[in-house]
């Protein structure tokens, strides 16, 4: 379960002054559902997800992630969350197994539990061929699998994906999409950010369109289509964010 209440993040920059990267964002995601955060570059997707993963502290507002408050119990949140982003790389000088062991240990898994968990993940993700090879010699696909295994090592209740298919080829991207779906099917709460319309259409149960740090519209694909009298998601997106440089928010902050 994820519930964000008026999440706000203001960055202070000496040159650019104040930047409201995320501005009063509220939404909720139920277990077994995928929430798609759709937005252009710089819309505030990454900052929102980093706030949920407690990598950043909110300026105002809060969120409850897997039963823990991000302000009061950030370590508790991190213990229950799997975070995968294009910017979360692997240690090149460690093998895939060592990587999984390291993060498993940091999550406090007992040695025998961890060993069994690594075996299960290697089975599911077909990693046995490269489990004991160093990550810096991996192909993109192998890296992706290792990263996915890393986010799953502690079997988190909530999965946060920040543009996980960015820079991947079609096959690798399909594998990721399949994996995200599998997470939902296992009853995990999933939040997924992207700017690729087709991924959102294929994957997400609820879509939130974010622009300029604010959530501009929200609903299932059919809700959005009905509301805007338009079947093409890209057209809907442009209508929601474009044209008017600062349209009033369609959703009042919760």
């Amino acid at each position, binding site marked *: 379960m994820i519930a964000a209440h008026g999440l706000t993040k203001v960055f202070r920059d000496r040159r650019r002054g104040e930047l409201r990267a995320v501005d009063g964002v509220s939404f909720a995601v139920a277990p077994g559902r995928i929430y798609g955060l759709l937005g252009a570059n710089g819309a505030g997707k990454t900052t929102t997800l980093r706030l949920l993963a407690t990598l950043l502290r909110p300026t105002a507002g809060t969120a409850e992630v897997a039963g823990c408050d991000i302000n009061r119990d950030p370590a508790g949140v*991190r213990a229950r*969350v799997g975070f995968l982003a294009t910017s*979360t790389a692997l240690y090149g000088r460690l093998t895939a197994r060592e990587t999984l062991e390291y993060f498993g240990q940091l999550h406090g898994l007992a040695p025998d539990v961890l060993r069994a968990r690594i075996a299960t993940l290697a089975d599911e993700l077909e990693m046995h061929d490269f489990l004991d090879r160093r990550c810096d010699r991996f192909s993109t696909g192998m890296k992706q699998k290792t990263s996915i295994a890393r986010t799953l090592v502690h079997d988190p209740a909530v999965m946060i994906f920040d543009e996980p298919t960015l820079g991947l080829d079609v096959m690798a991207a399909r594998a990721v999409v399949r994996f995200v779906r599998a997470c939902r099917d296992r009853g995990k709460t999933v939040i997924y950010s992207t700017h690729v319309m087709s991924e959102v259409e294929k994957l997400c149960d609820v879509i939130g369109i974010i622009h300029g740090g604010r959530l501009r519209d929200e609903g299932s694909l059919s809700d959005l289509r009905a509301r805007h009298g338009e079947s093409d998601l890209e057209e809907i997106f442009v209508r929601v964010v474009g044209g008017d440089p600062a349209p009033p928010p369609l959703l009042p902050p919760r």
Partner: protein
Amino acid sequence: MNAAHVWIIYRKELRDALRDRRTLISSIVVPTLLMPLLLFGVGKVMQRAVTEAREEVPAVAVLGGSGAPELLARLTGDARVRLVPVPADWREAIATKRLRAVVEVPERLEERLRSGETAPAVRIFHYQGELKSENGARVTERIVAEHRERVVTERLAARGLGPEAVRPFEVRRENVAPPEKVGGNLFGGLVPYFIILLCFTGAIYPAMDITAGEKERGTMETLLCSPVARLDLVLGKFLLVLTGSLASMFFVVASMAGSALVGGAVFLGSAGSAAAGSLPPGTAAAGLGSLPTIDPLGLAGVFAMVLPVAVLFSAVALTVSLFAKSYKEAQSYLGPLIIVVLLPGMIAALPGTELTARTALIPLLNLSLVCKEMLSGSWPWGYIALIFGSSSLYAAGALALAVKMFNREDVLFRS
């Protein structure tokens, strides 16, 4: 603080560092090779220069020798110098190394001596700092002095006196300083200097790799996603940097001792011993033999005193390189810091810089000075306590700063 987390992070960083060529080079290879290179490279070159200067028969010219035919004959007949005609531009000739020295003999010198008149000085012109010219001047001076001795002996004989009339007893200097004291004084400035340098360079590469390097490679964000507190993260990483610093210090001292043992045998055997023995005290080769006799207790003291400084260096390197966006940026911050670190060591190596209540509070300078004391066998406990205390305080401050830096999101996500 969660000690288990700190330990997990430290162990992983150590494994990672041991697989990183750059860290291995800076923490193990450079410190191990530095001393042998210095001793066998620079030492050998110096030794050769000294031997060459000694083996050369210097070209010497005489100005106004007509008034002293006896002296001139002695100089001509002596194989230790090669007499050449004096050129018009003899000063220039010394400067350009065509001539090693020029002897200026006062007019009518021997005539004045015979008549009992006091004669003005015989002057020897040379080029100070130029090894071969100084050697030429020294040899020439010896020949002239020997001639003077003979004149004295003749005068005494004419009055029916022996040489002991003007030299009733000998004066001789005897050394009472034990060899380790001599070693401490000669190397007291040098040892801490290298230890401080290596202590710092050993810290900076691991520090850059596990902070700015991690940011650059994108693994920092992965690590921050784990349920580890930032404090544990800093401490784990800090311990690794400290390990690099201490390892580097250990290897430099071990290789110093090793190369001193080998070097002592090499330089003090055969031709080396003559050269080293006749060199003025204070030059490197003269001290070579005394290096192995450095007091091990003093060395242990040096290690103990360097410990808080290693902590200080590790924390500073960690803080500075965490601030940097990339490995390159971190290098450009830490490179110039090496000079800042070396400066106090250089000042301490200057003769006359003494340990006082004021210098005992200046970081690094105090360390160099107290190391000099301890290596030469004296233990000023008051200062030792003061220096250890103040260094520990500086180190704690730097570590607190590193922790603070790790809690700043604008630093962690600086891009």
